[in-house]
């Protein structure tokens, strides 16, 4: 083949390669969208919405809707926020049906060719924000619906995740994501606020079990206030023996002094959202193709073999073999969460002061989710890398230029799926203040990690006997 013909064919393929690369995008999702965070920090809600809308369409539609609903929530546009979140929930449900063409493309290009379906902990936060939207709109009945949806949403999303996973050990890890103590607790508080004491007790009991069983997942122990809620509602319903059983099984849960919440009056529930959730980053892995790899009967077996090679336990020096080729693959890895300037609050009113208690760690949930998905994700990445490797080898046999171009195409399209709901907080804390009926000036002191007050604000709250007030605040800066 003449040099000119080679260049002619090469330029055509380069053109196609460029088109595919353009289609695959350049920067990672996080790098392209992280400026949303700085917009929220300055309260530039409309700019953030414009930024989200500018990217409308494509495979990230679910993230656009989630982030749109989230920004609208903070902007106080609660009805619009609910509309966006409803669209997100509908889309997430429809994405249960997998697109064969998208999945086929993902085995050649990368996982960004697949519609983003949302992670379980992300989809479970939608009812939380929607509940606050409805409470702000004066519709507590609709907030109750969201409370009932919250834990179902999490279980459904985990089920959809498990469906994508082959290895039993990875499925088992994914199943641990199925429960959230915080969501059960928050649901229980909403139930109790509407006088549904039985539903509240069941939710508190589920919360206690989830916290006790999930401490290793999130690092968050059962909050002391949960024990009081469980005891109060359980005894009100006459479930004395059940409370005693729980006290025996988990004595620390009840090891808290009473806070006077049995006295007449009402309750302030304050949810503090702090920091920024750990995003997903891209990590380039170099994994060797060995001369003995021809022993694998299929690409699937070979890919699982390569997954094992990424393990820290794998030691090449114990194997007397030669490296034939280095496969370079892009995989998602967890970035670092940002704690933010505020880590806790003190609530004060009517001569009483309470501190917030840590309730959930979304960054650790994100990390546990990635860990559960890791085996399957690596397997798929290596199947794709082997397809690219085989294409490169085949092209190289035909023509060295074509081999170089196909290899280049493979490298340029190798991108990790780092898509994630970037505007979520890192952690959630909860403060509870029981107040006598009447009008009170509620003081909120925001504290940094050293326990120093860095900002304070006050607002008037009207407390009714047996009434509940729910507040959520996100100090962005």
């Amino acid at each position, binding site marked *: 083949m003449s040099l000119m013909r080679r260049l*002619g*064919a090469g330029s*055509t*393929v380069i*053109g*196609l390669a460029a088109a595919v690369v353009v289609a695959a995008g350049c920067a990672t999702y996080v790098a392209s969208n992280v400026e949303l965070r700085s917009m929220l920090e300055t309260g530039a809600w409309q700019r953030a919405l414009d930024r989200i809308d500018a990217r409308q369409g494509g495979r990230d539609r679910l993230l656009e809707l989630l982030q749109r609903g989230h920004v609208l929530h903070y902007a106080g546009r609660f009805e619009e926020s609910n509309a966006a979140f409803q669209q997100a929930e*509908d889309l997430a*449900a429809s994405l*249960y*049906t*997998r*697109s*064969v*063409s998208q999945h086929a493309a993902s085995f050649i290009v990368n996982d960004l060719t697949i519609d983003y379906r949302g992670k379980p902990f992300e989809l479970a936060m939608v009812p939380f924000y929607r509940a606050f939207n409805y409470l702000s709109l004066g519709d507590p*009945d*609709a907030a*109750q*619906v969201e409370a*009932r*949806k919250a834990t*179902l949403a999490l279980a*459904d999303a985990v*089920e959809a995740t498990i*469906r994508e996973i082959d290895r039993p050990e990875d499925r088992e890890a994914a199943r641990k994501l199925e429960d959230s103590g915080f969501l059960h607790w928050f649901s229980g508080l909403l139930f109790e606020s509407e006088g549904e004491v039985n539903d509240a007790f069941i939710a508190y009991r589920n919360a206690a079990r989830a916290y006790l069983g999930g401490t290793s997942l999130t690092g968050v122990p059962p909050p002391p206030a949960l024990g009081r809620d469980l005891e109060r509602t359980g005894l009100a319903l006459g479930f004395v023996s059940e409370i005693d059983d729980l006290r025996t099984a988990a004595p620390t849960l009840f090891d808290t002094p009473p806070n006077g919440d049995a006295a007449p009056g009402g309750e302030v529930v304050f949810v503090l959202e702090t920091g920024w959730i750990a995003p997903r980053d891209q990590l380039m892995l170099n994994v060797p193709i060995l001369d003995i790899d021809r022993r694998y009967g299929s690409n699937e077996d070979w890919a699982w073999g390569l997954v094992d090679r990424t393990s820290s336990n794998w030691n090449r020096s114990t194997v007397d073999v030669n490296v034939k080729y280095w496969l370079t693959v892009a995989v998602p890895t967890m970035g670092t969460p940002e704690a933010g300037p505020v880590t806790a609050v003190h609530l004060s009113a009517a001569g009483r002061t309470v501190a917030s208690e840590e309730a959930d760690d979304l960054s650790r949930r994100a990390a546990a989710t990635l860990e559960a998905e890791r085996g399957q994700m690596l397997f798929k990445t290596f199947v794709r890398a082997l397809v690219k490797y085989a294409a490169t080898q085949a092209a190289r046999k035909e023509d060295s230029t*074509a081999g170089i171009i196909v290899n280049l195409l493979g490298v340029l399209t190798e991108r990790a799926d780092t898509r994630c709901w970037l505007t979520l907080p890192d952690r959630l804390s909860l403060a509870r203040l029981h107040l006598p009926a009447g009008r009170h000036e509620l003081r909120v002191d925001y504290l940094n990690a050293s326990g120093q007050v860095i900002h304070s604000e006050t607002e008037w709250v009207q407390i009714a006997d047996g009434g509940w007030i729910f507040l959520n605040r996100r100090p962005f800066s």
Partner: protein
Amino acid sequence: MTRSTTVRIALVLVLAATVACTTTKVTRVPTEETIDLSGRWNDSDSQQAAQALVDQSMATPWVDDYMMKHGDKPTVIIGTLRNKTPEHIAVKTLVADLERSFINSGRVTVVASAEEREEIRGEREDQQRFASDETVKAWGREQGADYILIGEINAQFDSEKGKEVKYYQVDSYLVDLETNVKVWTGFTKIKKFVGRSKYKP
């Protein structure tokens, strides 16, 4: 790869993109036609539940008992139906369907709800100032209800591997407003199977 191959690939891609473009198509359908899209509670469920509850209610002797005792039709007000499901249900639609089914039965009189009464009283108050003496409506002539219909909607959802069974139960009670005696209780059930395809093209 030759230039002609590239051109062919490009043509196929353009054709695929054209075919993939979606257009909005709107078709009018009869309102009584049942159309299930998401599997959530919809207008058909509301009408079906309302009709079933009213049919059950009319098949029991409380209306006849009342008529024998008072010589007139009982007056009913539709109270609150609490939504205790994990779905946003248009309870007002169900209440309206219940009212319509009760009125159409011809055996009971239905009076306006608390929310509607506020509006009507506002209008009557307005009449006191601006309407002629011949047409102004008097205060204190409202018809009080004998019974209030209250109830709740519960649901149980069970799902696995893209399949979901949704079970709704609407429980309702007719309560004597003077004595708190429940003169009738009824319930209706709706069960749905929602199957999602695992794959699409």
